[in-house]
Every structure is written in structure tokens, then in C-alpha cells.
């Protein structure tokens, strides 16, 4: 015999209560979907917005090489964009895509069905976190083209505007050390960055860098040798000098006078040139 039927009102009440219980799960899923939605993996070319400042000028040859490679292979490395679709890394690739779309729309349509471009979307807003945007841009670039000294200086300028300071030692509160940040970002040593920045500074203050002219370099070196020899002569002799030291002490006065003479000759020469 079939089981006696229960009260259908109870059955409906139970179902309605279950709907409330599932609602929480529905919400959790909706939140997750929303998060995933903001992490898009594809965007239309027109939805990818250029960044406001470009760190490096585009190299037209590199752009056309990339366009050629994209024609053949598609976009292998996705462009990196922020949550709003602003380009973080891939300026050359983006330029190549625009160029390809214009010059070869058939190939473009073939490589990018429905115009969808692969992107790697990072969950932050470049406008809100410009430092992070710069770091992403640089970290990505590091693998590709080496930075010239000019480019390093331009990057330093941008970091300075973000309150990075190029001072030695610990930065003050609210400031950040420029050298190490830049070094990490472009994957070179902090020492190299400091060297580049120092040279740039000197060039800025003195267009004709005397150090780069051999004759000045020689003069400078001779002066340094002269000072070092004087210093050596002023030191007291060792208690039991070896043969080499004895010979050195013997030749020191004449060697010193030759160094001084050579320096004087160069000074005369420079005066004549002027």
C-alpha cells in the first residue's frame, strides 16, 4: 500500500525554507562570479586603453617585427592590463596589434576571432596604485629590451614624481629609496643604477665632461700618483726593508720628479690649447 500523503502545505513550506537556505550559497557564487568576471582573459582591442605616460618610446622596427610574428603565430604573450583595461605592459605588442588590424584586417580577424585579444588582467587600478603599475610594466619589460641610460634616467624621473628619492643611506619617512627600487624593477644592480644616475647628473651640470677627454684623465691620474708618492715618502722606513723596497726608496725622488714634470708638461699643453 502506498504511503499516506502528507500535508501539502508543509511540503511547500519546507521548499520555501530551503530556498532561503540555498540563497546564501547563491550569493557566495554570485560574489565569486563577479570576482572572476573582473579578471577578464580577453578584451576587444578598443577596450584596451593606452597608459598615460610611456616609459620608453616605441621602436618602430620592433613594432613591425612583432606585427609580423603575430601574423604568423598570434599573440603568444598576453597583454597585461589593470582592472579597468589600462595597459600595464605590452606597448609594442599593442602598437603591433593596431598596425596589423589596419594593414591586414583578414589576418587580424583570423588570429582574433570576434576581435578578442588575450590579456592578463590584474586586479588593481593603475590610477590608484601608480607604483604598482610601474613595477608591473618594468618587471614585464625586463625580459625583453635592455634599457639605455636615457631610459633609466626617464624611469628615475617617474619614480621621483612618486616620491622616490635618490639619496644615500636611509630615506626619510614618507620617502622611498630610488636606486634600489629602480634596480629591482629593471633587474640590474643598485650599484649600476647609481652609477648611471650619477653620470647623468654630472652631464647635466657640465656638458663638456672633462673626464672623458684622455689628456685630462692623464693629468688627474698623474696628480693622484704624485700625492700617493708623497704620502709614501712621508711614511717611516720599515725596520728591515727588503731589496725591492730599498730599490724603490732609492728611485722615489727621481720618479716623483718625473711625475711632476709630466703633469706640468700636460698643464702647459692645455694652456696652449686654450
Amino acid at each position, binding site marked *: 500500500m502506498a504511503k499516506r500523503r502528507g500535508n501539502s502545505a508543509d511540503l511547500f513550506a519546507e521548499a*520555501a525554507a530551503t530556498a532561503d537556505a540555498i540563497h546564501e550559497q*547563491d550569493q557566495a557564487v554570485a560574489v565569486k562570479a563577479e570576482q572572476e568576471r573582473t579578471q577578464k582573459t580577453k578584451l576587444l582591442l578598443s577596450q584596451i586603453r593606452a597608459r598615460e605616460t610611456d616609459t620608453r618610446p616605441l621602436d618602430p622596427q620592433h613594432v613591425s617585427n612583432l606585427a609580423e610574428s603575430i601574423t604568423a603565430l598570434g599573440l603568444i604573450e598576453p597583454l597585461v592590463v589593470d582592472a579597468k583595461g589600462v595597459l600595464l605592459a605590452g606597448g609594442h605588442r599593442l602598437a603591433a596589434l593596431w598596425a596589423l588590424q589596419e594593414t591586414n584586417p583578414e589576418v587580424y580577424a583570423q588570429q582574433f576571432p570576434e576581435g578578442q585579444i588575450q590579456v592578463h588582467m590584474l586586479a588593481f587600478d593603475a590610477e590608484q596604485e601608480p607604483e604598482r603599475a610601474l613595477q608591473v610594466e618594468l618587471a614585464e619589460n625586463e625580459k625583453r629590451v635592455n634599457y639605455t641610460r636615457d631610459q633609466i634616467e626617464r624611469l628615475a624621473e617617474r619614480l621621483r614624481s612618486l616620491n622616490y628619492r635618490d639619496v644615500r643611506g636611509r630615506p626619510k619617512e614618507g620617502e622611498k629609496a630610488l636606486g634600489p627600487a629602480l634596480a629591482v624593477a629593471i633587474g640590474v644592480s643598485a650599484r649600476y643604477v647609481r652609477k648611471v644616475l650619477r653620470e647623468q647628473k654630472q652631464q647635466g651640470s657640465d656638458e663638456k665632461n672633462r673626464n672623458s677627454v684622455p689628456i685630462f684623465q692623464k693629468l688627474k691620474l698623474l696628480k693622484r700618483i704624485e700625492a700617493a708618492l708623497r704620502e709614501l715618502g712621508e711614511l717611516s722606513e720599515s725596520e728591515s726593508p727588503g731589496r725591492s723596497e730599498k730599490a724603490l726608496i732609492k728611485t722615489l725622488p727621481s720618479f716623483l720628479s718625473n711625475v711632476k714634470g709630466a703633469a706640468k708638461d700636460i698643464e702647459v699643453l692645455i694652456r696652449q690649447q686654450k
Partner: protein
Amino acid sequence: MAQTRIAVAARKGGVGKTSIACGLGSVIASQGKRVLVIDLDPQSNAAYVLGTNPTAPGTADLLSGGSPAALEASPDLYVLPGGPDLAGHAIQSLDPEDLADAVASMDYDVLIFDCPPGVEYLERLGLVAADVALICTDAHPLAVMGAGRVINELKLRQQKGRRGAKRWALALSRIDLRRSMDQTLDKQLATAYPAIDRLIVHQDSAIAWAGAERIPLIKYDSTCKGAKDLQAIANWVFNG
């Protein structure tokens, strides 16, 4: 006249969403309003039951930025087919407000969104784009459960002040008052959701036959019981 946008949803499958959406479309079109039924179901049933080509470009195309031509089912009654493209990744990653934006400038008096069963992100597109929602349920606890989930979603959106349907009613589908479950349903829903209007669509073979024969309801039988019930629903939509 301002455009009226109606979402028909249930979460549960097979409770009469498409029959109500298309039947309602036919009824409203017969009143001289230009109606577009927008099918959000990957199964693409709406275009089929209205006698048009369910495989023509439709809602997925619209959501991808295209402007597909609506198919004419009868004078003043048009349909955008659904289809498997709606299950694609590009649609899944849309913003819930994208459909609302896509239809904003459409030249129709009434838009009816036929929401799919189960697929929440598609249903949400419809609920968000609509200003009125009809939540379908039949006299089965599983359908009541599905309707409850839709109601909870609508409530939450409203509480958070988000875009979406501001007014909704329960549409009790395929009701045959000779059955005990059907008798209890209305009372039970009144208890569980006292603030929500309940509209009844009685069991009517004309609705089923119109769909099977792919003829808009009014053309099939303008005086059938189902048409009268849907007329009452249209009245609720326009006059509260």
C-alpha cells in the same frame, strides 16, 4: 510611452516560463504595442514556439556587441532567439548590467526577457535589465524552491539599491484547482510571501498546443482561458 521591460524567471525548469513569456508577448502585441521577446535560454525555445527560426543570430549576438535583426512572429510581436552561444565564455564574463545597456535604446514598447532555468548569470542579465519581474512556479515544492531563490535575489538587489526589477509578482503556472497541491499552493505562497502579488495561469491545453504548433497564442486561440489569465497579468504589469 516609456518602455516596459518584463523578466520572466523561475530558476526551476519546465514550469512554464517560455509559455508565459511568449503568451504574454502575444497578448500584449494584440493590444497594439510593439513587443520584443528576448530569449536568454541556450535551448532557444522562445523563437521556436513563436514559429520563427531558433538558430538565427539573436541574444548572444546582441550581448557581443552586434545588432541582430529581430524575427517577426506576428504583427507587433518580435523575437530574438537564444541559443548555445549564450553558454559561451564571452557571455559568462559580461557585467550583469550589460543586457540592460544593450537594450536601452531599442525601439519597442515592451521587452520580455525569457530567462533560462538554472543558469544564474543569464537569468541575472534579464532580472537586472527588467523593471518588472514575473516569477513562475507550478504546484510542486521544487518549483516553489526555485521561485524562492529568485525572490531572494531580487530582494537583495533592491536592498542594495542595485539596478534591476523594482516590482515583482508570482505567476502560478498550470493551475488546476481539482488537484489538492494546486489548491494549497496559492495559500502557502500567501503565507510565505505575504507582500508579493500572486497571478494565476490556469492549466490550459491551448497554451501547450500553441507552443507545440509554433503559433503565437492569440493567433492560435484568442479567447482561450490562458489568454484571459495572461491578459490579467498584462494588466498587473501596466497598471499595478
